[in-house]
C-alpha cells in the first residue's frame, strides 16, 4: 500500500463490463491532492475517458461511483456519495449526489471509487466486500422494483447490513431521467445516472465491509471535528436546524411559497394558493412517524411517513422531499398530499427522478390546456391540471415507455422537439435538464445558477441561500459590509456574479469532500475554513491547510467541469434560461412582475470565473494558473480558449 493520504482507502475499481473483469487499482495520489475526491476526481476521470464522440448510452460511456475523504469519518453532514457520467438526458456533464449509508459502506468495503465502462452481456450487479469485488448475475433481479432488489440482494448474501444503490424498471427501460436509489428511499435522481447503469446491464452496486479508515492524526482530527460541530450550536442556526429536524425539506414549501418562488402550474407562476394543503404542518401532524438521519449526521432532515387509509395507503416509507412535493404538487396544481406521497413512492420504486418526471407531466398538462395536444394524443387521458389519477397512470407509463409515456420518457426538451410548433415555449429546462423547484423571477441569483450549472437547470451546484433566507452576518463576512446590502436584496442582480462564483467553488469542494448541502447551503454553517480545519489532520495533505490552495482547488474543479462541457459544444448561448423564466414576468404572487437580469449577472460571473464574456470559454492563463495545462492544450487545439 503506497497511497500516502489517510481518510481514503487508496483503491478504486475499474470495472470492464464488456469483458466481465474487475480491476483493482491504486488511487492516483495527485487526484486526491488536486481534486480531493467525489465530483473533482470524477471530473478528472470523465475528462480523460469520455468526450464529444462518447454515446451516453453506448458501451463507451463511463459511470463513476464516488466517495470523498470525509465520507464515513464522522464529520457531521457527510453521509453522502455521488455518481457522475455523460448524461443521456442532456448530452453533457451529469453528477448526482445522494445520502444514506452506501458511500461509507463502499469505503469500509475497501474502495474510494468505482468506474464502470463497457457493457455487460447479461444483467449483473457489483458486490463489494472487504477489499474484493465481484460481478454477480442479476438476471433474477432484472425487472424488479428497487426495494425488492435490495431485499433480494440482502437475502442472497444472508446479510441485512448490505447497503445498495440500484436501478428500477425505468432505468432498465431507458427512461432518460432514471435514478439510482440508495438504501430504499434516497435518490441520486438527476440527469439519468440510472439510465446509464441500465444501458450497461448493471442493476446496481452492493457493499458491506469491516475495513476501517485510518486517520493521519486522530486526536487532532477529532478536535477539529468537534470545533466544526460546535457551529451547530451557534444561535444563528437554531431556527434553521430546528426546522430541518422537525419538517425536513418540506418546510421549504411554506418558506418558498411565501416569497413567491414555488414553481406552480408548470413554472407559470411562483405562488400556489393551496400550498398549505401540501405543506410542512399537515405532513408533520398527520403522516410523519419518525425522524431519520444519514450516516453520522447531526442534522437529521430525513423523515419517515405512513398513510393508514384512503386511496393510497402505505407502510413506512421515506417521506417526499421539497422537490418531489413541488414537482407533483404545486407544479401540476395537485393539492392532494396523499397522492403526492404515492407518486414519490412509485418513482422511488420504479427508479425515476421525481423532478424531471413531475415536470414532464406538468409540461404535458400545459400543452393540453393550450390545445397543443389532446386526450387522443395522450392515450385518452384527461390531462387537466391537478388530476392526480392521470399523474399516477403517467408515472407507470413513463417507466415502461408505454404509449404517451414514451414521449415523456425522453424529458421535455426532446418531447417539445417531437411535438413541434409552440411546444418549446412550455419546456422549462436548461441544457435539457428540467428545472428544479426554484424560480429566477423571484430570486435573481438562481437565474445565474440555473444558467451556469454544468448539469443544467438545477440549484445544487451554486444556489445561494444567503439572500433567500436572509443571513446578513454571512453576507458581510464573506463579501464585505459594502456589498452586503445589495447581496441580501433578492431581486438585485448586483454582485450576484461574484456571489454565485464563490458558491460554485465552495460547492465544488463540498461535492468532492463529499458532504451535504445541508450545513453548507442551508444553513450556511460551513465555509472554506471548515475544510482547512479538518482535511489536513484527516488526510495528512498539508496543502489543504493553505486557504489559497483550497480556493484554487474549488476553482480547478469548477473549470474542469466547465471545460468538459465546452468540449461537448457548450458556450454562453447555452448558459441561458428557458423562455418562461427569462421573458415572462412573474404573473401573480409576492414576486409579481419579477424578471432576472441574466446578462448583467453572467458578465460579472465570467469575469470572476476567468472566462471570455462572449463565448464563456476560459482564459488559457486561468487554466494554466490552476495547473490544468492538459485542459488548456486540448481546448486550445479546438479554439476553445481565450
Amino acid at each position, binding site marked *: 500500500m503506497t497511497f500516502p493520504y489517510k481518510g481514503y482507502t487508496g483503491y478504486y475499481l475499474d470495472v470492464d463490463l464488456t469483458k466481465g473483469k474487475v480491476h483493482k487499482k491504486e488511487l492516483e495520489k495527485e487526484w486526491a491532492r488536486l481534486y480531493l475526491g467525489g465530483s473533482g476526481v470524477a471530473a478528472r476521470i470523465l475528462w480523460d475517458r469520455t468526450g464529444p464522440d462518447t454515446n451516453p448510452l453506448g458501451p463507451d460511456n463511463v459511470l463513476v461511483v464516488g466517495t470523498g475523504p470525509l465520507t464515513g469519518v464522522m464529520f*457531521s453532514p457527510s453521509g453522502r456519495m455521488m455518481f457522475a457520467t455523460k448524461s443521456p438526458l442532456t448530452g453533457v456533464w451529469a453528477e448526482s449526489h445522494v445520502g444514506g449509508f452506501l458511500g461509507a459502506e463502499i469505503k469500509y468495503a475497501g474502495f474510494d471509487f468505482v468506474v464502470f465502462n463497457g457493457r455487460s452481456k447479461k444483467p449483473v450487479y457489483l458486490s463489494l466486500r472487504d477489499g474484493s469485488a465481484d460481478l454477480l448475475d442479476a438476471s433474477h433481479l432484472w425487472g424488479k422494483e428497487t426495494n425488492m432488489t435490495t*431485499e433480494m440482494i440482502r437475502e442472497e448474501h444472508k446479510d441485512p447490513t448490505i447497503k445498495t444503490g440500484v436501478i428500477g424498471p425505468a432505468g432498465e427501460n431507458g427512461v432518460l431521467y432514471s435514478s439510482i436509489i440508495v438504501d430504499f*428511499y434516497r435518490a441520486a435522481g438527476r440527469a439519468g445516472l440510472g439510465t446509464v447503469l441500465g444501458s450497461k446491464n448493471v442493476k446496481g452496486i452492493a457493499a458491506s465491509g469491516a475495513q*476501517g479508515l*485510518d*486517520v493521519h492524526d486522530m486526536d487532532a482530527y477529532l478536535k477539529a471535528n468537534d470545533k466544526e460541530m460546535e457551529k451547530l450550536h451557534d444561535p444563528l442556526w437554531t431556527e434553521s436546524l430546528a426546522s430541518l429536524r422537525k419538517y425536513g425539506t418540506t418546510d421549504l414549501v411554506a418558506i418558498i411559497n411565501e416569497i413567491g418562488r414555488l414553481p406552480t402550474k408548470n413554472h407559470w407562476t411562483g405562488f400556489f394558493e393551496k400550498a398549505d394543503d401540501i405543506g410542512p404542518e399537515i405532513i408533520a401532524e398527520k403522516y410523519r412517524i419518525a*425522524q431519520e438521519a444519514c450516516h453520522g449526521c447531526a442534522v437529521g432532515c430525513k423523515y419517515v411517513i405512513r398513510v393508514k387509509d384512503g386511496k393510497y395507503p402505505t*407502510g413506512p416509507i421515506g417521506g417526499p422531499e421539497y422537490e418531489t412535493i413541488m414537482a407533483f404538487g404545486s407544479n401540476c396544481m395537485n393539492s392532494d398530499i396523499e397522492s403526492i406521497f404515492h407518486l414519490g413512492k412509485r418513482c422511488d420504486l420504479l427508479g425515476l427522478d421525481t423532478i424531471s418526471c413531475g415536470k414532464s407531466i406538468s409540461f404535458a398538462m400545459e400543452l393540453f390546456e393550450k390545445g397543443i395536444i389532446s386526450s387522443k394524443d395522450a392515450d385518452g387521458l384527461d390531462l387537466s391540471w391537478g388530476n392526480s389519477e392521470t399523474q399516477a397512470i403517467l408515472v407507470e407509463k413513463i417507466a415502461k415507455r408505454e404509449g404517451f409515456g414514451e414521449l415523456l420518457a425522453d424529458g421535455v426538451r426532446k418531447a417539445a422537439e417531437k411535438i413541434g410548433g409552440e411546444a418549446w415555449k412550455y419546456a422549462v429546462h436548461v441544457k435539457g435538464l428540467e428545472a428544479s423547484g426554484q424560480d429566477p423571477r423571484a430570486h435573481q441569483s438562481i437565474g445565474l445558477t440555473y444558467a451556469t450549472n454544468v448539469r443544467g437547470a438545477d440549484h445544487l451546484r451554486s444556489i445561494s441561500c444567503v439572500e433567500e433566507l436572509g443571513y446578513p452576518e454571512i453576507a458581510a463576512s464573506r463579501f464585505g459590509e459594502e456589498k452586503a446590502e445589495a447581496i441580501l436584496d433578492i431581486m438585485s442582480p448586483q454582485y450576484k456574479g461574484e456571489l454565485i462564483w464563490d458558491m460554485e467553488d465552495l460547492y465544488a469542494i463540498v461535492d468532492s469532500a463529499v458532504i451535504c448541502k445541508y450545513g453548507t447551503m442551508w444553513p450556511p454553517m460551513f465555509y472554506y475554513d471548515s475544510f482547512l480545519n479538518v482535511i489536513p489532520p484527516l488526510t495528512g495533505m498539508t496543502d489543504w491547510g493553505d486557504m489559497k490552495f483550497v480556493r484554487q482547488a474549488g476553482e480547478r474543479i469548477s473549470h474542469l467541469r466547465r471545460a468538459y462541457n465546452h468540449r461537448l459544444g457548450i458556450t454562453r448561448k447555452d448558459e441561458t434560461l428557458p423562455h418562461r423564466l427569462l421573458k415572462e414576468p412573474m404573473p401573480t404572487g409576492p414576486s409579481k412582475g419579477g424578471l432576472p437580469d441574466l446578462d448583467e449577472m453572467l458578465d460579472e460571473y465570467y469575469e470572476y470565473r476567468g472566462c471570455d464574456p462572449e463565448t464563456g470559454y476560459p482564459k488559457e492563463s486561468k487554466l494554466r494558473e490552476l495547473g490544468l495545462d492538459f485542459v488548456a492544450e486540448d481546448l486550445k487545439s479546438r479554439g476553445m480558449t481565450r
Partner: protein
Amino acid sequence: MTSFLAIDLNKCTGCRNCELACSAKHTNSFNPRRSRIQILKDEVQNLVVPMVCLQCEVPLCQQACPTGAISYNEKGTLVVDKEICIGCENCVTACVYGGIEIDPQTLKAIKCDLCWGDPACVKACDYSAISLVESNPEGHKARKHGVDLAFDTTKIKTGEVAE
C-alpha cells in the same frame, strides 16, 4: 456505584454516529463493525434497534465464558480481557441483548467498557438518545424503558432486565 448506558429509542435517528465515535476511541480508526455499540436497521419496517451491553446484574456472557476472560474492572464495569479471550463466541450466543460481539480484525470478543466512565458514544449522539446512568432505581427504569421499546419493536419477549 456502577453505571450503564440507557438508550431512548424514540430519540434515535439511526445515524450511527455512536458507532463511529466508539470505533475511533477503541480502534483509532473509523470502522463501525468494530464498534462496541451497534445499530441494527430494517428500513422496510422502519426499525432502528441500538444494541449495546446493558451491564447485566447476572451477566450471561460471563457465565458462558470458558476461560474467565470477562470480569469487572475497578469501576464495576464488565470488560473482556483480550489476552485471555479465545474468540469462541460462547458469550455472543449467551447474550440475549446482542451486547457482545466478535471484533472482525482481532477475532476476539468485544463489548462496551463505558470508556472507563466517559463514553464516547454519549458525547457523539447529537440527538441525546444515549445517556450514562447510575445503577439505582431511576437508572434501572431508564435502562428497562430502552430495552422494552427495542424488544417491543422487534417482537422479542424478555423479563430479564431488572427495573
